[in-house]
């Protein structure tokens, strides 16, 4: 088989100069193992890697862990600092670079004075993932040249061009424009550099979803139920979900004529409509999203656990990783795998929600352990009661290295009334048969 492959492999490596030969070989063998015909397999591999080679990248399409990138962009924000690398103070700059397709954070590992507004061509940069975001790294092998100012849109245009619905806002956005309704609002006093400042925090919603927001400037007239339109708001990460940050440079106005909007206060604040789990997995993180599915497995670590009284870490045998031997306290949680036939996600329930779902209090569960003298008894009992059951949950989801996870804020038993659904499905079957 290998000998027959050689000419094809040659052809591919010639076409994809910058791609590692072993990688191509592995890909090819993998496709062939699926009994994909050789010509098809070659086509697939070419398609997959060609984009890596041919096109100079737009900032909006950058993916983590690519190298040899060439981009044109304008500096939107920059800060200079020094970091300690192996005992040496190294000056670096970090900030935001953008073009008409998007913006991304960058780090410049060279001592070079760049200014906000500079239009640059950067060759041979690479990307990494940093705090869930793609970050562009400009190292000592990169080449930076200045471009003429007209070749890129202005700073103002760039920060005000990205209009999105809340559902579509992700970590790959840095600045966004949107129109949404305030459904929650709190005032919080914070100390910044010994001065008291009031921060507004709350939740925005539209017909596609909800996102938390923070404002460091007072917002005249903004209250629950008001629709606001904003431009150039900053997207940050807040507990793994995107959050909208409004500051002095954000332009914001209250929308008075709300008749033509696709949402109202009632429809936007209602998050009880479940979404297919596969839609969540495409997103880095989502705020207050609802799903329904079957509990198809319970992960170990469900049941009664012991936590460190100082740091709340889960501990075993009263030994905390950070605080040594401690007198732990009991807690109860459920880590369930919920699957709705489109995909699966780990759902984490705290003690209060676990007690509801499990149907017994933590004290009753502790009794089970005492009576059986087995730590696993509660876990086993939970599995017996819960596996196969339907569960609805609402909470924030995140997609991290630990896999997709949703931390539940509320739980419910999905509506079991089937008459309408059966009726609709039968209609659908008939429609196809006779129509």
């Amino acid at each position, binding site marked *: 088989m290998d000998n027959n492959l050689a000419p094809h492999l040659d052809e591919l490596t010639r076409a994809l100069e910058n791609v590692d030969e072993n990688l191509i070989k592995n890909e090819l063998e993998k496709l062939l193992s*699926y009994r994909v015909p050789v010509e098809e397999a070659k086509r*697939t591999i070419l398609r997959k890697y060609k984009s890596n080679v041919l096109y100079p990248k737009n900032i909006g399409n950058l993916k983590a862990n690519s190298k040899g990138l060439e981009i044109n962009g304008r500096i939107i924000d920059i800060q200079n600092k020094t970091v300690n690398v192996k005992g040496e103070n190294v000056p670096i700059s970090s900030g935001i670079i953008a073009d008409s397709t998007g913006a991304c954070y960058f780090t410049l590992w060279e001592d070079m004075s760049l200014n906000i507004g500079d239009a640059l061509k950067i060759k041979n940069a690479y990307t990494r993932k940093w705090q869930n975001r793609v970050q562009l790294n400009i190292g000592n092998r990169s080449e930076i040249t200045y471009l003429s100012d007209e070749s890129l849109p202005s700073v103002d245009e760039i920060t005000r061009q990205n209009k999105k619905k809340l559902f579509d806002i992700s970590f790959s956005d840095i600045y966004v424009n949107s129109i949404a309704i305030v459904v929650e609002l709190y005032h919080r006093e914070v100390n910044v550099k010994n001065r008291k400042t009031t921060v507004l925090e709350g939740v925005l919603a539209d017909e596609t979803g909800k996102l938390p927001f923070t404002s460091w400037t007072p917002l005249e007239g903004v209250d629950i139920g008001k629709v606001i339109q904003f431009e150039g708001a900053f997207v940050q990460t807040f507990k793994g979900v995107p959050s909208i940050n409004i500051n002095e440079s954000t332009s914001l106005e209250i929308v008075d004529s709300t008749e033509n909007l696709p949402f109202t206060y009632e429809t936007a604040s209602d998050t009880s409509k479940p979404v297919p789990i596969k839609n969540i997995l495409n997103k880095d993180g989502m705020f207050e999203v609802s799903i329904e599915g079957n509990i198809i497995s319970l992960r170990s670590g469900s049941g009664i656990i012991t936590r460190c009284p100082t740091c709340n870490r889960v501990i075993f045998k009263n030994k905390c990783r950070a605080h040594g031997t401690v007198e732990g306290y009991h807690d109860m949680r459920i880590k369930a795998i919920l699957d709705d*036939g489109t995909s699966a996600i780990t759902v984490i329930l705290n003690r209060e929600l676990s007690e509801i779902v499990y149907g017994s209090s933590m004290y009753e569960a502790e009794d089970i352990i005492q009576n059986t003298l087995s730590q696993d008894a509660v876990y086993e009992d939970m599995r017996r009661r819960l596996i196969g*059951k339907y569960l609805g949950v609402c909470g924030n989801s995140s997609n991290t290295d630990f*896999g997709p996870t949703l931390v539940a804020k509320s739980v419910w038993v999905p509506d079991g009334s089937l008459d309408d659904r*059966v009726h609709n499905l039968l209609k659908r079957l008939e429609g196809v048969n006779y129509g």
Partner: protein
Amino acid sequence: MVEREVAQRIFAKEFNDSTLNIDPGKQVDNNSIYTPNFLITPIGTKVNRVFVVGVVTEVDNIGTDNNIWRARIVDPTGAFVVYAGQYQPEASIFLSTVEIPAYVALVGKARAYIPEDGNVYVSIRPEEINVVESYIRDQWLVDTAELTLDRIDTYSKAISTELKGSDLYDYLVQNNVPFDFAEGITLSLGYYHTGEDYIEELKTAIKDCLESIDVESFETSSDEPDIEEFLIEIMKDLDEGKGVDYGELIDLAQEKGVSEQTVEDAVSSMLSNGKCYEPKIGIIKIVS
């Protein structure tokens, strides 16, 4: 992080009609440790993990050391065959102790056994198995009907394009069909050549499933279920674990003004729709 394989909702008919098994483990390939084994059904569903709710009707202890359990889990379209061996100790214990019949929820991996004669025997290797209430079975039927119908629609659309191979795959992916399903349809089309006949067959099976639920929900409006509920109450009172003597049941019902004929009709209807069964002749027991 390797993404968890979704648990497909699939009826026994579609599952058992599958003969195309993709087993990357058979190929020498270092990358394949994360590439799971999967079954491609006649309409292109790529099945690795399944979630099934049905009635367990048979459990047999087979194998030389008596350590393999074979069970049949039945839905309205057919039966899933389940094998639990020494590496599925919890499922084995469950199957060895479960009372038959009972509604069970099963999560497991699709397996295919292909002996020399070229036949393909598909089965499920359990990961989780548990007793559930009957309403979960009904909900599963509706979920599965809906998802299967969605897949049929996508498959029908795929064959109507008359595309093949990677052209079809590209077309499907561009039309927001998930990668796995696009791959499954492309592979299945080249293998089964499934046409309208089979799709109609599958649709009829789905219809039967849905109607089996509808019948029950219509019954709640007639007076029949009142008698059934009444009998179930009596049986719960009488049952001390081994079931209820049929004669005793009739006597008690007659005392409360229900004729022998009505009880007989109700019991035979309950026997046929699986709400109760006869562990021994003359003994009736409710399916819990």
